[in-house]
């Protein structure tokens, strides 16, 4: 495994690495491409764009998603925008600046060469999406409009109202649909990947469950691509769609893929606060709201007045006070942590004191109501629909919520995991965002991976891989299918008293308390113990009901929760071992006197990639040192 952790970053200067690499990697001859079959799991931005692009190149592709249509993958919910270093605004943006912002925003815990490549490709993504008919916002002259987004000082974010993720996903979905219509991609909707099959050391297929009939089946290929998103739902309450889960990457991890930086989870600052115990998920509101909204809490604790009755002198615009140059636009991790801090001081607002105000009073006075309506109208409507309050009149209440996971399966420069032939793209991998992701960068990464990186790098693998012919009747496939079936039967057989949902809530609460926005050693140790105990209870006392050979949503959920239970332990381990604060990983023991994250580059300037050694056994740590050729890590400062 240690050798597998070679990042394979090409030689040469930062600016030329990708171009050179692209020219030097092996190619698959056009006539040979149809002979190679590739499985793409997930149909979000990364998965759909990869499946479409691979099919365009001529490969045989099968694509899987658990939703009823590939168009519903969770990328669809991204609101704010997508970054690209086009410098259309003439405000001094450049590829280097986007690269630097992303690396710095990630608190120097990402691989320099990957981030540079991402910034480089960002411009191609916009071209590609416009050509596909993505209706980006435009100026009156007909050219593309931009806005600025949290954590940066240039305007480089492209957007389609508050539905950028939806429009980009529909673009990729349509490209994918075209290939499905032409018979180049076989689409398996309502199919969930439940395991990976490794044969002679290479990923050769997957076992899936047809969610309608409950039937298990094996699919064989020359390479497997996981584009299965992130694991924020480990917290139960998150902004992720209900179906988002860790299962695909966790199973791949158990089969030998290293899991990198699992404790790097992002808590988004602008979500609608929960209202009660019934809450099934949290709703995010675009961070773009922070461009015009001002965040504040009352100066004094327990101030019960209505927000509009609190005079300016008694309001604490704490982000503007603490960070005069970035103000309300500080990166997400900082904004979230500061919100938690003022709430912990007892100055929070709304039910349970879990909230801070996001106030548009001044913006409406400055620009007029119609301008604010034009910019955020749909977000205001959404807020009103959920809370019953009108944000034009009363400040919004917001609170941080789990939103994105920077951690994921470890991949090399070619996006290949520690298992040869297993590629991981989009949120499911760990690569570009370090310890904190900047706003409008997730869409960029998913599409860069799917349209422009994987289609090249997978060819390099296929051109040299010596793969023996295999089919689904091979003993290895039979064996994995049997294991999957046994697990399904075990869940059904438990016949306990509590639903998987109840267990999931309990696990979520535990992780939020001890491995959430801020962490400490004692809490994490305690969490590991509790997770283990709860996991055991789960397997003894869960009640699923129904049968395996049917449309059984309780069974789907129970399987995902079971994997979260195993994964939770790894997450705590990682958080415990990283004795520093960086980005979203805030260890209370390691902070500056002003309460900022205190990084330790000496001891932790590496990617922590974990090897699975059995459920309940301590994982083995492999380090990929992060070397910076161009940028010199500095203490982040947004003051």
């Amino acid at each position: 495994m240690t050798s597998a952790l070679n990042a394979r970053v090409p030689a040469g200067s930062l600016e030329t690495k990708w171009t050179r690499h692209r020219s030097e990697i092996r190619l698959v001859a056009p006539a040979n491409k149809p002979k190679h079959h590739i499985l793409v799991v997930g149909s979000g931005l990364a998965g759909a764009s990869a499946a479409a692009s691979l099919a365009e190149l001529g490969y045989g592709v099968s694509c899987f998603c658990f939703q009823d249509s590939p168009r519903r993958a969770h990328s669809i919910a991204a609101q704010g925008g997508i970054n690209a270093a086009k410098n259309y605004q003439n405000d001094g943006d450049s590829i280097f600046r986007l690269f630097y912002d992303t690396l710095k925003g990630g608190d120097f815990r990402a691989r320099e060469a990957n981030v540079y490549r991402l910034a480089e490709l960002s411009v191609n993504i916009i071209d590609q999406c416009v050509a596909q008919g993505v209706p980006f916002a435009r100026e009156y002259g007909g050219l593309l409009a931009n806005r600025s987004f949290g954590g940066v000082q240039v305007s480089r974010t492209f957007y389609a109202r508050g539905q950028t993720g939806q429009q980009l996903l529909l673009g990729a979905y349509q490209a994918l649909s075209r290939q499905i219509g032409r018979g180049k991609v076989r689409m398996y909707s309502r199919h969930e990947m439940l395991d990976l099959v490794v044969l002679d050391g290479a990923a050769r297929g997957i076992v899936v469950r047809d969610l309608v009939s409950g039937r298990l089946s094996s699919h064989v290929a020359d390479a497997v691509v996981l584009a299965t998103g992130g694991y924020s739902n480990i917290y139960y309450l998150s902004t992720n769609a209900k179906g988002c889960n860790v299962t695909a990457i966790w199973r791949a991890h158990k089969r030998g893929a290293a899991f990198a930086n699992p404790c790097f989870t992002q808590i988004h600052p602008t979500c609608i606060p929960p209202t009660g115990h019934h809450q099934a998920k949290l709703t995010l509101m675009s961070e773009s709201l922070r461009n015009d909204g001002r965040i504040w809490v009352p100066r004094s604790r327990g101030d019960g007045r209505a927000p509009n009755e609190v005079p300016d002198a008694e309001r604490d615009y704490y982000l503007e006070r603490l960070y005069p140059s970035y103000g309300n636009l500080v990166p997400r991790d900082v904004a979230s942590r500061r919100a938690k801090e003022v709430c912990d001081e007892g100055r929070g607002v709304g039910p349970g004191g879990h909230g801070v105000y996001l106030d548009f009073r001044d913006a409406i006075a400055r620009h007029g109501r119609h301008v604010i309506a034009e910019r955020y109208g749909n977000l205001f409507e959404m807020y009103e629909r959920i809370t019953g309050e009108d944000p034009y009149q009363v400040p919004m209440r917001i609170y941080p919520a789990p939103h994105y996971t920077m951690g994921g399966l470890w991949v090399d420069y070619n996006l290949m995991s520690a298992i040869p032939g297993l590629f991981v793209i989009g949120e499911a991998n760990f690569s570009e965002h370090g310890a904190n992701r900047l706003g409008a960068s997730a869409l960029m990464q998913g599409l860069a991976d799917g349209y422009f990186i994987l289609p090249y790098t997978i060819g390099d693998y296929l051109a040299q891989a010596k793969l023996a012919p295999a089919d689904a009747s091979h003993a290895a496939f039979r064996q994995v299918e049997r294991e999957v079936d046994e697990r399904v039967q075990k869940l059904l057989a438990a016949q306990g008293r509590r639903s998987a949902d109840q267990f999931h809530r309990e696990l979520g609460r535990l992780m939020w308390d001890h491995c959430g926005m801020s962490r400490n050693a004692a809490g994490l140790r305690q969490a590991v113990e509790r997770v283990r105990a709860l996991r055991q209870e789960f397997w003894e006392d869960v009640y699923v009901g129904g049968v395996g050979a049917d449309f059984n949503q309780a069974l789907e959920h129970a399987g995902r929760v079971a994997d979260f239970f195993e994964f939770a332990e790894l997450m705590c381990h990682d958080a415990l071992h990283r004795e520093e604060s960086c980005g979203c990983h805030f260890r209370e023991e390691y902070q500056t006197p002003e309460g900022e994250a205190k990084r330790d580059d000496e001891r932790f300037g590496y990617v922590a990639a974990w090897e699975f050694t059995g459920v309940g056994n301590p994982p083995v740590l492999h380090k990929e040192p992060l070397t910076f050729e161009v940028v010199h890590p500095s203490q982040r400062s947004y003051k």
Partner: protein
Amino acid sequence: MDLTLHVWRQAGAATAGRFVRYELGDVSPDMSFLEVLDLLNQQLIGRREEPVAFDHDCREGICGACGMVINGRPHGPRAATTACQLHMRHFPEGAEIWVEPWRARAFPVVKDLVVDRSAFDRIIQAGGFITARAGSAPEANAIPVPKGDADRAMDAAACIGCGACVAACPNASAMLFVAAKVSHLGLLPQGQPERAQRVLRMVEVMEAEGFGACSNHGECMAACPKEISIDFIARLNRDYLTSVFRHQPSEEGPDPAEG
């Protein structure tokens, strides 16, 4: 609050369904309608009964997964609101609520409130795209698009593919769904080369899937959670008509680029 729910239960596509009555207490007005179903399901699981199957995912009104007819209206009584964003504060105390799946031949019931909407996917596969190979795109600002056109394209592109339009239509027609995609792509300069064949193919597949005819009732627009206008249906009709008479189909064959 207390509620009485009548939920359509159907074990599978081949079996008959029926309404089952459930009494539900302790419902918070802050709950979404889907959270009420969650609550019901938790109680059913507690009683070792089978929970109600329903599609849902993002719960933010954008993925289009959820959809059910609530008291005779797709996604319930609130305008521009999906079932997941419908909150119980809009129902009176003690309300009696009937919940049914989308009903259309083209959307067969999978189980309970879950229907198979893959017909929509097949319509898109027939032509709801712009062919643009990765890598071949021109510079994004090379073709300016008038803001009005871009805005109207976005109005149409806002469709979430939930199927409420079909569910609400007295004829179970899918015209609003098809019109939204045809208009979104047809309003943009990038969509012009394939415009005629797009509309012809999409309409052909739409009809083959067994959707009904548009009688211009406008119910689709009223049910659409994204308030997509039936003006786009007029646009689709015009596109279709001109395409039938003007379009010169290129010879059917493999993609020129792929041989």
